[in-house]
């Protein structure tokens, strides 16, 4: 066991996969000499050379399309979005090409690629650097969306994503890179399509992902003292959703609270709510409750920013109310 920071867990995943498979390469802005904006690829170019850790010009749509072409012809690119928000410039290449091309080509081509990088609301980064792209991309067929939240799952999931033959958007959170955890010395790979049961409980099912998992666990500390017993599930796979795990939990608790950092309109929670209503309506004792970010550009001011995203006390209150409905 070695104590590892999340960004280093990601680095280990990339390093191990590059050592294992020569067709794996990294490209993006400042991934080489600079080591990546959050040091995920630090010094890898020294080990693997400049073609395998390719510093690209600032040309998001073109280097993303280039990765699609490389993937179609048998390589396994990992794109680092310096900030995931910048990949809005590559929306076309991610949606039309990475996402849809296998289908449109009638199965002629596979696109094994990972698009990863930092996103989410950081500390006063302003609206453009505080984006949650998962909501925008969840409507694109053919893409898988994965969000990591701990050093352990970051490493195991990224390794799986690199090995997967589909295009995967891999979401990291700017405020989680310095989380520490003891990681196993032996190699491990985690399934991309399985949600993680973070805390077993019986009162209510809390569905969350990425940084909000940690807000939820902060709230759970308070709730435990008050005698509540919530079940916490980290979705991990935002698309497709793991309805085996989600369904099993809801059949037990009959209550659902979704805690997410993306905006409420058209967010992951919106899709989740609709799907739960479609599949498990009869199991519910109360309407699904969504705690999401406000539908506004994330403000710079710290107080306003805090008001924009969900805070632990709101989660505590939501659980109290939801459980009270039972009586």
């Amino acid at each position, binding site marked *: 066991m070695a104590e590892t920071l999340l960004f280093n867990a990601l680095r280990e995943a990339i390093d191990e996969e590059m050592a294992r498979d*020569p*067709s794996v*390469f990294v490209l993006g802005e400042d991934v080489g000499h600079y080591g990546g904006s959050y040091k995920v690829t630090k010094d890898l170019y020294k080990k693997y*050379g400049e*073609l*395998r850790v390719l510093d*690209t*010009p600032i*040309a998001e*749509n*073109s*280097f*993303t*399309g*280039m*990765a*699609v*072409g*490389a*993937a*179609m*012809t*048998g*390589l396994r*690119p990992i794109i680092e979005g310096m900030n995931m928000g910048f990949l809005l410039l590559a929306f*076309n*290449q991610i949606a*039309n*090409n990475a996402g849809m*091309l*296998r*289908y*449109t*080509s*009638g*199965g*002629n*081509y*596979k*696109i*094994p690629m990972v698009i990863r990088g930092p996103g989410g609301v950081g500390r006063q980064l302003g609206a453009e650097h505080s984006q949650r792209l998962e909501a925008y991309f969840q409507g694109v*067929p*053919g893409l898988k969306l994965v969000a990591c939240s701990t050093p352990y799952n970051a490493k195991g999931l990224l390794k799986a994503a690199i090995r*997967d*033959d*589909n295009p995967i958007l891999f979401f990291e959170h700017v405020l989680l890179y310095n989380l520490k955890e003891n990681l196993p010395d032996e190699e491990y790979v985690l399934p991309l399509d399985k949600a993680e049961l973070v805390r077993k409980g019986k009162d209510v099912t809390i569905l969350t992902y990425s940084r909000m998992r940690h807000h939820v666990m902060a709230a759970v500390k308070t709730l435990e003292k008050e005698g509540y017993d919530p079940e916490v599930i980290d979705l991990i796979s935002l698309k497709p959703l793991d309805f085996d795990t989600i369904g099993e939990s809801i059949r037990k608790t009959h209550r659902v609270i979704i805690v997410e950092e993306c905006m409420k309109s058209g967010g992951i929670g919106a899709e989740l709510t609709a799907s739960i209503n479609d599949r498990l309506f009869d199991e519910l004792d109360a309407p699904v409750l969504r705690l999401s970010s406000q539908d506004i550009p994330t403000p710079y001011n710290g107080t306003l920013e805090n008001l924009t995203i969900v805070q632990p006390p709101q989660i505590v209150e939501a659980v109290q109310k939801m459980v009270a409905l039972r009586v």
Partner: protein
Amino acid sequence: MMQERAIPTLPSIAPITREEGLRLYEDMVLGRFFEDKCAEMYYRGKMFGFVHLYNGQEAVSTGVIQSMRPGEDYVCSTYRDHVHALSVGVPARNVMAELFGKATGCSKGRGGSMHLFSAEHKLLGGYAFIGEGIPVALGAAFQSKYRREVMGDASADQVTAAFFGDGTTNNGQFFECLNMAALWSLPIIFVVENNKWAIGMAHERATSQPEIYKKASVFGMPGIEVDGMDVLAVRTVAQEAVARARAGEGPTLIECLTYRFRGHSLADPDELRSKTEKELWLARDPIKKLANYLIDKQLTDAEELKAIDHHIQEVIDDAVKFAQESPEPDASELYRFVFAEDE
């Protein structure tokens, strides 16, 4: 009508054998007849969507692709992709079946006219959004270099050709990819099919520097203009560019001055282009030009060319028959191919 650009001439053209000449002729006729049949089938309600025909531009597809190793080198197209697909060797049957939306189509009926693909023939695809194929082609070219230099595969000397129009050269992806191709010395050829129009936008109204080939120089890349109605000229220029790319000496931009003989798509009323302009270019028909050359040089005679025409007409008729008789995609396979696991 703007003053026409002077037709560029080459100091000399690459020598050509009788067999090569006939192959070029056959390839161009295949493209022409195929497209004529598409128009007929479209108006008869056999194919749908936006269908962009290539009539008039055949010398570009044939001149470039027949200078490559079709089926081994990579080709990336646009929505105007039927003839590129035929030139790389996708059978007319499978292209026609795709346009009919049939299960036997080269994209299994999922793609349609603007999305022809064939991994087997190294056709990277038809792309319906302008410009998006250029980076994909760049990726294939990067892959060749990567295989050679990183994976030690000495046989990875494939060249990639990216085809696109004049209008597309005003898009960022054009400039971004020229930059990266030159920066990393990638084995790619950028083939601009300058047919003077982007739907209804005249080239001169869209760009501050209409001579597209000149844009290569700022990237330190050779840029060449060529008569896109002369397959032998295109071929000469393409052969040089392919050789340079294959030798690891980097990319080339080729601007082919050409013209489409039909509207932008079969849905386009084609009202903006003047009669004089159309007549001028129609008189420069690339197929007739090649036929005259071959006869002139006594490499063939009218009789032999007529026999080729006849044979190609049979190929086209057979393709239509095949498409008509092919099954629809199975409705139970609606979801097939969304993910890599679906073979």
